[in-house]
């Protein structure tokens, strides 16, 4: 037999390595930013070697958050092609510089620092998760680089700093609509069970909004069950909740865990309505719960059927490439790039952006973003002085699956 002393050492080292290196999800810890980021000392041309204006895109392309990040990358790429075909920034093309944030805070910080200091971008779109934004956005704020969040919906994101804004409407505005839609479908709802991913800032923030809405509607909150975004087995939580016989279940999580939870709730016999949060707002949930996804209600900040030329062009480009309707995350990523493009165009008309030193351009661009109004696939949007998006149009969609569960769609409720 082997010596247990050495083996225990090996074992504990293994655990340590695995815990530190293999965290696919969000561990809920806050990565401190101890070293101030140096602003790029660039006083020359703001275009890169190819003559294009670089805009940073920091989305999760690896880890379990890549499910959402990949949808965002698609939206950004469609925007890049579309706006460059239309002449870019008054004749100068834009160039999107992609950096993978992975699924954690450290990955987002690294991506931001690379975009700011190495790629010398004029501004950044991202990161994918609110959890990451709370750690990475201060890096950009200190470097005085504008950041447009395309999917961060937690409270207090724009308040991170003067250079932080978002095109993704906060959960506090969007989320309550789905509970109202559920009550419209079933006025007899009285008891509500809530599930949320406790290791994800966004889910925590969203569940607070859901729970406050439940109370405000005079409903009884019978249980709050927690899980981790990396969990796959929810039977004990589902059993705990179902024994209390809820009429409505509300889930704040991400696509894989949320979809699995829905599946297990349905297989254990739950037949009532389910409301999903923004993390479930993706067609990537369809392969997880298949036919059992049917009927999930999700509030939306985007509808593929929104009228307007820009949305129909965007929708056509997406459906041609992916053979399905564009999801909200893709539309929001497109809108974020569009805001940069139109702000740069407006700035270029005042004073040629190629002639501005990079720090000055970043500063002027930030002011211009907040000053403008933009007609995007999301509808008309603008920003408050603090950087919060002002958006008029919100929707609620209900997932409709084919009988065999192979195909699904978000059917928008009237």
């Amino acid at each position, binding site marked *: 037999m082997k010596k247990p002393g050495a083996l225990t050492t090996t074992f504990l080292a293994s*655990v340590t*390595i695995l815990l530190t290196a293999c965290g696919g999800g969000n561990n809920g810890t806050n990565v401190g930013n101890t070293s101030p980021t140096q602003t790029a000392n660039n006083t020359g041309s703001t275009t890169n070697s190819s003559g294009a204006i670089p805009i940073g895109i920091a989305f999760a392309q690896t880890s379990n958050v890549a499910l959402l990040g990949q949808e965002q990358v698609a939206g950004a790429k469609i925007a890049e092609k579309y706006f460059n075909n239309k002449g870019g920034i008054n004749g100068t093309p834009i160039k999107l510089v992609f950096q993978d944030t992975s699924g954690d805070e450290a990955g987002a910080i690294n991506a931001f620092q690379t975009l700011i200091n190495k790629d010398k971008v004029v501004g950044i779109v991202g990161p994918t998760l609110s959890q990451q934004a709370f750690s990475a956005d201060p890096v950009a704020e200190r470097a005085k680089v504008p950041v447009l969040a395309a999917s961060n919906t937690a409270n207090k994101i724009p308040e991170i700093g003067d250079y932080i804004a978002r095109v993704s409407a906060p959960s506090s505005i969007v989320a309550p609509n789905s509970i109202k839609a559920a009550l419209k479908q079933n006025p007899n709802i009285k008891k509500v069970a809530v599930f949320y991913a406790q290791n994800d800032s966004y889910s925590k923030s969203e569940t607070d909004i859901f729970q406050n809405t439940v109370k405000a509607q005079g409903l009884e909150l019978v249980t709050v069950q927690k899980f981790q975004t990396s969990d796959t087995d929810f039977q004990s939580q589902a059993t705990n909740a179902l024994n209390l016989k809820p009429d409505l279940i509300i889930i704040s999580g991400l696509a894989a865990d949320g*979809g699995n939870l829905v599946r297990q709730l349905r297989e254990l016999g739950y037949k009532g309505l389910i409301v999903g949060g923004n993390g479930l707002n993706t067609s990537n949930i369809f*392969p997880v719960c298949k036919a059992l996804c049917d009927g999930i209600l999700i509030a939306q900040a985007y509808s593929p059927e929104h009228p307007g030329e820009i949305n129909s062009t965007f929708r056509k480009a997406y459906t041609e490439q992916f053979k399905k309707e564009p999801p909200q995350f893709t539309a929001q990523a497109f809108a974020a790039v569009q805001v940069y493009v139109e702000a740069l165009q407006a700035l270029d008309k005042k004073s040629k952006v190629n002639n501005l030193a990079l720090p000055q351009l970043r500063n002027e661009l930030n002011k211009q973003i907040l000053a403008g109004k933009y007609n995007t696939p999301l509808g008309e949007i603008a920003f408050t002085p603090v950087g919060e998006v002002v958006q008029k149009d919100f929707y609620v969609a209900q997932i409709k699956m084919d009988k065999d569960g192979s195909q699904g769609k978000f059917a928008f409720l009237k």
Partner: protein
Amino acid sequence: MTLTLFLQQFLNGLSIGSVYAIFALGYTLVYSILGIINLAHGAIFTLGAYFTYALMGGTFGFNGLLANATLPIKLPFAIALILGSSLAGLVGIAMERIAFQPLRRKGSDPLLTVVSSLGVAVVIVNLIQYLVGAESYTFPADAYGNLPASINFGSPENPIPIRSVQIVIFAVSVVIVAILTYFINSTKYGKAMQAIAEDATTASLLGINTDGFIVLTFFISSFLAGLAGTLVASSVSIAGPYFGIAFGLRGLAVIVLGGLGSIPGAVLGGLVIGLVEAFVPGEYSGYKDAVAFAILFVMLLVRPQGLLGRRFIQKV
């Protein structure tokens, strides 16, 4: 807690615990032969699930480099499961040849082997994502024939629903444990493996092909990982390339609790962790991992050899 809820959570604990057990068996086999923890075990677990999915559906899915690529065959679930797990076993052999054998020949520190296995895990996980994307994949609803979604173990008034897939997983796990126990304790090959686990040098002097049995061990271990991965995926879908990581962590807790290198210990440890997790109160249900590892640390302090492990006695 009502009796109904207690019974339901007990059955939940047994079903998830049986998966932990079958997963930990692979860990413990490699450990007992080589004295190392193979951190790539979770990645092989994931890989096995993907293999079975591809063999059953005749497709690699719709994402990544292999998007829309098809196979000329579509196999029934049971056959795909055996074949997919066997492919996982072959990957295990390749991993042993590439990442473990060279270090073993050089007499490297076991920690280097652990790091090497972690490297293999990271490569496999990222390769999976590159080839088939980060999206989830779900086995067809009819993978287990026409089984109902759940079976009621209670009365119509006091239902105790248990998902059918969990019952299947538990039954398969029991069969696998029985077969493996018979193989290890009652066959010539199993006894040879035990001899190597006891003292590889002496076993080699007695004419046992140590290298060959290490390969066999890795095949069985990875086969079990692939099998466990498929069983779990049939219950909860293949939740992306990182699917096996959480199971890898729990598997470590299981083998320490049960006793490093002990097959019955792996089974007992898996069931104990599964049952403890099932009975974590609802308001703390997000802390199941922490509970599992708290048990692990207590066990390390109180009984380092685990529930069924053997105490090491050093002769002086």
